[in-house]
Structure formats: C-alpha cells, structure tokens
C-alpha cells in the first residue's frame, strides 16, 4: 500500500528531513511513527499525501508514484488519503455535520449521498447527537473525532494522522485510539499515526517505526524488532 524506496527529502533551507529511507507498509496495517522532535515524522506524512515531493527515490502509495504527480493530479490522488491533524482544523462557522459534508462537497458528491454518508460517519465516530453543534461547543476529544470523521468521509484507503492525540488527556486519547482501531478494522483503512505518547504505544500495541534525524532507527512489530537492513 505504501512503499518508500531510497527516499530522501531536503528542504530548500538545506535541512535533510528524510535520508535514504526504504520501507513497506501493507494494506490494512496500523503503524505508529515515533521519534524525537525534528526527526522527520511530519515530513514522512507529507510525502505520503503528496504535499512534499522527494528529491531522491520514489514514494508509491495506492499504486501511484506520488512524487511524480502533476499539480493538477494531486487532488484526485489525495481522495485516497485521509489526513488528521493535531490541531483539528475544523471550520469554525460550520456545524459538525457541515464540516464532514464539506469534505464530500469538495469532491463533488451529490447531496443525497452526502447526507447518508455523513450520518453513517457521525455514528462511527460516536457523534450522532452532535451533528448540529459548532466546533467550539465540543470538547477536544469530540472535535478530534469530528476531524477523523471528515478525514474518512470519502472512504480513503489510507489514513494519516499527525499527532491526533497531542492535545488530549490520556482518557480522550484512548477513546481516539479505539476509534482509529475500529476504522482500521471496519473500513479496512491503512493507518499511519505519528505520536509522542509512549503510554499509548505501550497500551495499544502496533507495528512501530522509530525515526531519528531522518533515518529509521527501529521497526518493531508489536514490541518485537524487525531487522531492517
């Protein structure tokens, strides 16, 4: 599903964010990406969703060579990728329902399908009774669930989440984890999640990729090490 082959990314300011990285993430996998600040985690996510292009190597996601995509083609590719951020990024003047519907309107879905799917999604993220609320009327955990709802509304094959629990207390974080696990199982969505939360990684055991200064320093399957040379 996601393949990095010899990928390097250097920003215009000369920072080498990702260095000669090769890895494979299979369809339906749930993977943590951990590492100290500045180790290249967000850059990794941006290479997957096509926001950044590698200057060496190839990133292949859902059979698409992401780095070679023309500007005009990026949107169509990106419909395969759901993105969740630490800071939610809900539109403040739209209700929860409208925020999720927005993602589907933006790709030109028809009204009927949108209504049906948004109800379904609201149920999945456990916000059925909050559809009419504005983001400011929700708790942090609820806002994050709304964002996840928006990210999966278009049934992406891959969901990338950059510290989705970064702003939440442990209880809310576990709630989000359980939701992501459900999405991973029920919708067969491949998930890559960036996190700093050691407790979470220990509690919900998954394949864990550790980055340091742009290199993969460990790739562990549920606690056990995978040799990665």
């Amino acid at each position, binding site marked *: 599903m996601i393949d990095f082959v010899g990928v390097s990314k250097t920003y215009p300011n000369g920072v080498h964010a990702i260095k000669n990285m090769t890895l494979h993430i299979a369809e339906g996998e749930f993977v943590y990406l951990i590492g100290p600040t500045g180790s290249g985690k967000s850059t990794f996510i941006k290479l997957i*969703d*096509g*926001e*950044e*292009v590698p200057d060496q190597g190839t990133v292949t996601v859902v059979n698409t060579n992401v780095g070679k995509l023309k*500007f*005009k083609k*990026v*949107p*169509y*590719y*990106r*419909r395969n*990728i759901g*993105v969740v951020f630490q800071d939610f*990024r809900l*539109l403040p003047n739209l209700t929860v329902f409208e925020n999720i519907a*927005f*993602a589907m*309107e*933006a*790709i*030109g879905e028809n009204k009927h399908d949108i209504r049906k799917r948004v109800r379904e999604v609201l149920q999945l993220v456990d916000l059925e009774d909050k559809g009419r609320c504005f983001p400011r009327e929700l708790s942090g955990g609820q806002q994050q669930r709304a964002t996840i709802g*928006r*990210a999966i*509304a*278009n049934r992406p094959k891959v969901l990338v989440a950059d510290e989705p629990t970064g702003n939440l207390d442990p209880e809310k974080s576990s709630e989000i984890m359980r939701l992501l696990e459900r999405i991973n199982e029920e919708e067969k969505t491949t998930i890559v999640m960036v996190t700093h939360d050691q407790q979470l990684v220990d509690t919900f055991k998954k394949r864990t990729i550790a980055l340091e200064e742009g290199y993969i320093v460990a790739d562990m399957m549920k606690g056990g090490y995978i040799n990665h040379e």
Partner: protein
Amino acid sequence: MIRVIKSIPYNIKKAWKSIIRNLGASVSSVFAVTITLILIMLFAVAAFNVSSFTKNIETHIQVLARVDAIVEESQIPELEAQLKAIDHVVDVRYSSASEQLDLLIQDEKSKGKYNSFKNSNPLPAAFYVDADQGKNVANIKKQILKIDGIMDANYGGDSVNTMIKGFNSIRLYGGVFIGALSFLAMFLISNTIKINIHNRREEIAIMRNVGASNGFIKAPFLFEGIFIGIFGSIIPILLTIFGYGFVYDALGGNLLTSMFKLLPPIPFVLYLSGILLVIGILVGFIGSLLAVNKNLKWKR
C-alpha cells in the same frame, strides 16, 4: 458539463458570501469597474458618432469644377458629358457664372461687398460634380483636371481629412488611456480576490487535504470576479440608456448643425450596453483569473 451547470448555484452562493465578507475591497473594485466603463462609454459614444458623421459627409461629397474663361457657352454640354463619363460620378450640375456670383453675393459673410461686380462678372462658370463615395473623390478630381476647358477643381476633402485625422489621434490616446484604466480595474479586482483567497486559506487548505480539484477551488473566486464586473457595469449601462437618450433629445438629434446627425438612441444604446456588460465581465474574469493562478498554488 452537467456537473459544471449543477455547481453554478454553489459557486454563486460562495462568491456572494465572499463579496459580503470583504465588502470594502469588493466595493472599491466595483467602483473601479464603474469608472472605467463610464469612460469607455463616453469614448464609444464619441467614436461611433464621429464615424457616422464622417460617413455622412463623405456620402455627400461634391467637387466644384470651374470652367476656363475661354470656353464658349456652346461647349458646355460637351464638357458636361465628359464629366459625366468619369467613373464614380453620379451627378453633374451646371452653374453659370452669374449664378456663381449670385451665390457669392447672397452669402451672408460677404455683406454685399460683391454687389459692384454685377456689371463685369470676373467669376467663371462651374460644374458641381457628385461622387458616389467619399473615397473616390480625390481620383475624380484628378480626372476632372485632365479635361480641356476646366480651370481647376476643389472639394471640401481637406477639412474632412483633418477631422478624421484629429479623431484618429483622439482614438489612439483615448484607447491607451482606457486600456490603462482597464488594467487598473483588473489589478484592483485581482487584489480583492487575493485578499479573499488569503482570508480563506484555512478552508482552502482543508479543501486541498480532502482532494478538492483545482477547478472546484478556483470557481467561486472566478464567479466573484464576474460578479464584480457585472455590478460595476450597472451604473454605466443605466447612464448609457437614460443619459444618451436625454442628451439626444436635448440636442434635437444633431450636434451643432444638421450635417452632424447623432446616432438614434435605439438600437445604439442597446448595443453599447451589451458591449459594456461584456467588457465588465471580461475585466472581472481576467482580474480574478490572475489572482487565482498566482495565489492558489502555495500548497500542493
């Protein structure tokens, strides 16, 4: 195609919201379009009327061919036949020497000072030669001069030419001026749209994240530009329709003399209104297109 049509209400709604949200910049853009179009309108009124004046003058153009003093009365019919034989001549009228003098005496400006010439008329007889079209007059004059017994030939071509030349230079400078104004209006619209794009960065970023196509993101801004163009053309169009009719009636359909007939308001004002609307829309569309193409690419 169906999708494009279906998306029109959505885009109109978005564009409208955006205009309201950023009313100050929108109003100033509308204002710029209004000023530009009013100037274009005034210019067009002048241009179309002058070109119709010159056409009127040209269609009545006439050469005055004066006869040599040695020519006998009996030779006049033969001369007349020769003149009529020239290409593009539609009419020839003989005017005797005494008639020429009478005309001169009757001319108000002479104030009777030629009365004393009645006994010994120094003026030659003449022919009025009518050309079919203004553009043939110069050539007709040449042909006339070749005929024996003709002293000279003249037409009012010089004053017409001066007028056309004068207007051509007005057209040039006016055109440059209006072009510059159109650019200014486009620039203002482009800037307004730029501000609006900036205000909606967050929303656009989310649209990008969920895979909205570039066209989908651009469309509301293009509609907004077109709206500004349409709003900007309202006042100029009203001015055209009511103002031109008013001026036309006030002047009695002529400018100074009956030689300069103004274009009748219908259908002229309708054409002109259509032209103004199209220019307004184009200026708005191009202005927003410039902004959109430059400012929507900050994020892949």
